[in-house]
């Protein structure tokens, strides 16, 4: 408004007020009214203008005509009355005036005045309005004189024409304007009627026009309302290739962009929500998993959690032993235990579930095969099981089990659900793996403790043995030598001394051997000096002495020297394995083979005894030897495998060099 006032600052305050007021009214009405008003105003202005112009022109023309007519009639009467007047035929003049009056509708009156001013003939009847005589005069030299006079009957055009140059008098003729006015009124009326008619047509045309113009605009406005409410499905109609059409197109393009953006935004939001849900679900599962130490409890909690998340009734988790061998039901909810167990044992054999393990993907298995244990099973909420989703529990690309959830129809799980379940499967897989590792660690911890105990015991045993060896062997030999030396004090004869010395020398030699063996047993210096192969050959050479009836078959295909830790480890492992076989297998032949190939050293110790259960021996915890062997191999990054059956046992050791 301020801008408008500024713009109008050149105008007077009154004009400004008027314009502002006009705009307040004109600006407040609808476009339709504006157009109607403009059209109507134009038509009326045109109509009234034309009417006014025509009326003015017509009035001028009719006035001219009336004047011409008046002059003509009057002059005609003047000419025709000359002779009559000259011959004093006043009745003839009267007849002439009457005829003129009769034959000319516009003529109101006519009379003849003599040069002396006497009225010779007139058309008023018996009496005459004398005032009329003096109103109009004409010089005898003029053709005529017109004087308009006002009468009670309206305006009358009074023509005065001299007769015979005024010598015979003057004819006066009064012509009424009535006919002219009637014509004017009639024409004006016709024009106004036409104007009204045209106005009606104009209004009709304007209504049509406004309909034509405002229809797309209103449609556009409607669409904008829908858009404002968030409905982007509407399209502004394209009525014509005009500016409004272009506007509609632009608006439609805008809606399209908006819709695309909204769709993207929705998709993004949905993705966010889905991710959030997934994360929340994963978080819940993670929390659940982290709160439970026991694998079984952990899986059951996780299953419950997943069922809650998916709003499902029943499910079970199957665990696979490492190497894909045994299947075991970890937990089940909402299913009879027996069916769950049956499902766990059968499912992965001949059901499509097998694919879950093979392809490591989440599968929705529906419809179920009739052989499936949960086929057509009725759940607690009376739903019939029609299928189930099977999710692999994956860790380090290994499937450690499957998570299964029943469903009653095909559309229970969306793709997102399956994705989420896949993610949970991976989480659970890791948890299962962790739990297994944890269990393994605990086993190892326990074994290490046992090992430590054994080592301490073995050290004590060794010390006891060494003490016994020293006491039984070396001490007695030294005691014999002390006794022998005491004997020397009593001996006098050289022969006796000679004999005694020989006896003492044997004792010393024997003691020396014993000490030598003892040292060899503790740490063969040949291992340091000559290498693994030589040390094992020397050890094997002495083995039958200790374990009679046992045949040793040793083959060493090794380079000259290996790294010291490898040599030491392999020496002790082979020593342990040989000792175990000699002590426990009850076999007669012991075959030892060491080969070096592709940067690895392989040792195979095989006996033909009655065999044993390595796992049981390992779990038992009493087998310090086995643990010792395993730990030594692990320290070097190698592997230890034990195979055993009724025909004997074989220990495989492989160590990288």
């Amino acid at each position, binding site marked *: 408004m301020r801008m408008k006032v500024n713009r109008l600052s050149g105008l007077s305050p009154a004009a400004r007020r008027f314009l502002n007021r006009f705009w307040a009214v004109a600006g407040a009405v609808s476009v339709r009214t504006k157009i109607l008003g403009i059209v109507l105003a134009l038509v009326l202005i045109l109509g009234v203008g034309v009417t006014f112009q025509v009326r003015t022109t017509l009035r001028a023309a009719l006035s001219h005509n009336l004047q011409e007519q008046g002059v003509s009639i009057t002059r005609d009467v003047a000419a025709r009355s000359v002779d009559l007047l000259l011959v004093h035929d006043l009745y003839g003049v009267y007849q002439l005036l009457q005829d003129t009056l009769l034959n000319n509708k516009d003529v109101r009156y006519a009379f003849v005045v003599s040069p002396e001013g006497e009225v010779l003939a007139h058309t008023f009847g018996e009496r005459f*309005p004398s005032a009329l005589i003096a109103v109009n005069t004409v010089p005898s030299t003029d053709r005529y004189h017109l004087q308009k006079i006002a*009468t009670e009957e309206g305006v009358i055009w009074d023509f005065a024409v001299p007769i015979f140059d005024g010598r015979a008098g003057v004819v006066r003729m009064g012509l009424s304007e009535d006919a002219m006015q009637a014509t004017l009124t009639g024409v004006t009326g016709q024009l106004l009627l036409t104007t009204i008619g045209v106005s009606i047509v104009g209004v009709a045309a304007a209504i049509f026009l406004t309909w034509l113009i405002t229809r797309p605009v209103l449609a556009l406005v409607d669409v904008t309302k829908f858009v404002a409410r968030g409905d982007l499905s509407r399209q502004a109609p394209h009525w014509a290739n005009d500016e409004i059409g272009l506007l509609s197109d632009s608006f439609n393009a805008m809606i399209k962009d908006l819709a695309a953006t909204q769709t993207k935004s929705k998709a993004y939001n949905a993705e966010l929500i889905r991710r959030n849900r997934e994360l929340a679900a994963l978080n819940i599962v993670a929390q659940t998993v982290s709160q439970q130490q026991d694998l079984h409890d952990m899986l059951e909690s996780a299953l419950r959690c997943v069922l809650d998340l998916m709003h499902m009734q029943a499910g079970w988790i199957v665990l696979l032993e490492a190497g894909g061998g045994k299947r075991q039901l970890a937990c089940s909810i909402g299913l009879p235990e027996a069916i769950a167990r049956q499902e766990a044992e059968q499912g992965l054999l001949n059901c499509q579930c097998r694919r879950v393990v093979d392809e490591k993907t989440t599968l929705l298995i529906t419809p179920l095969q009739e052989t499936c244990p949960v086929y057509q099973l009725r759940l607690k909420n009376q739903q019939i099981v029609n299928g189930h989703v099977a999710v692999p529990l994956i860790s380090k690309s290994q499937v450690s089990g499957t998570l299964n959830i029943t469903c009653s129809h095909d559309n229970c799980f969306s793709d997102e659900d399956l994705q989420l379940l896949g993610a949970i499967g991976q989480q659970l897989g890791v948890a299962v793996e962790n739990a297994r590792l944890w269990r393994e660690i605990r086993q190892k911890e326990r074994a290490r403790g046992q090992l430590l105990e054994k080592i301490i015991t073995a050290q004590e045993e060794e010390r006891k043995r060494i003490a016994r060896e020293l006491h039984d062997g070396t001490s007695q030999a030294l005691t014999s030598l002390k006794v022998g030396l005491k004997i020397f004090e009593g001996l006098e004869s050289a022969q006796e001394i000679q004999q005694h010395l020989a006896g003492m020398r044997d004792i010393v030699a024997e003691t020396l051997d014993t000490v030598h063996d003892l040292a060899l047993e503790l740490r063969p210096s040949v291992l340091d000096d000559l290498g693994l192969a030589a040390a094992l050959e020397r050890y094997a050479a002495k083995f039958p002495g200790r374990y009679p009836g046992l045949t040793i078959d040793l083959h060493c295909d090794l380079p000259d020297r290996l790294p010291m830790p490898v040599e030491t480890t392999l020496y002790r492992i082979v020593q342990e394995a040989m000792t175990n076989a000699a002590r426990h297998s009850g076999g007669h032949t012991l075959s030892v083979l060491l080969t070096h190939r592709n940067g690895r050293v392989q040792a195979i110790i095989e006996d033909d005894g009655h065999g044993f259960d390595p796992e049981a021996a390992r779990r038992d915890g009493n087998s310090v030897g086995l643990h010792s062997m395993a730990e030594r191999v692990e320290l070097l990054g190698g592997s230890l495998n034990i195979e055993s059956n009724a025909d004997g046992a074989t220990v495989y050791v492989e160590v990288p060099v």
Partner: protein
Amino acid sequence: MSQFIKSSQDVALAVALALTLLTACGAAQAKDLPYVDLSQRESLPAVAQAEVIPLRLAVAAVISPKGTFESYSALATYLSEKLNRPVELVQRRTYAETNDLVESGEVDVAFVCSSAYVIGQREFGMALLVAPQVNGETVYHSWLIVPVNSPAQTMTDLRGKTFAFTDPWSNSGRMYPTVLVKEMGETPETFFSRTFFTYSHDDAIRAIANGVADGAAVDSLVYQYLVAREPWLGEQTKIIQRSPPFGIPPVVTSPHLRPQARAELQNILLEMANDPAGRKALKMLDIDRFVLVEDTIYDSVRDLESQVGLFELK
């Protein structure tokens, strides 16, 4: 429907807006004209009697009233000056009416047709005053005229045609042609297909010249007078027959005119040719002078009139 109602409301509003434009177009016309109340009527006042009684001079309708007025105005003025009294020129449509005026004394002096004199003299003693002399003669003729390209050679050739008479009492314009027809054993009603009266000679000549009539008989003096002033009339007409001479139309007085006045008037008229002003007035009438004539010069007219028969003329 609601859309339509809304449109109607809009139309009404727009009409209201637009009609305001029309209010400026009112037609209010102020008149500043003299006012006459036509209903305020009264009896016309009687004509005031002139203080001096004018000499009333009648001129028979030999030529049309307008021509007469123009021709005789100078004479009237001259007489007025000589007599020292106004002279009123009086005309009537027919010779008979003029004769009536002379008979009743409503006119004092009159220029009449020869035949009108013959009748008036016989009926009520119309008195011969003077006669005009034209080209040195006191006679005139009746000329039978037809349109210039008419094949007619004589009256006989006008059988079955339209014939224009001048005045019923006219010697040259009515009596002479009637006699011509009668000599052929016919009457004008049977001989001509149609006849009409022009009541003046100049109108008869004009009727021929304009082809309104196929033939007419006119006063030779009038024909000459008129052709001299309006040559086209001579070009459009031709004379096919001329009558024997008749006594010229005289100036007569009413039997009621006082002898003194009559003598005075006669004297002025006879002396006119000797007076420049009088000559000027005579020139207007193509008259040489006024002379005294004997009544006998009108005998031939009387013969003709007796052949036609007065009752027929009336």
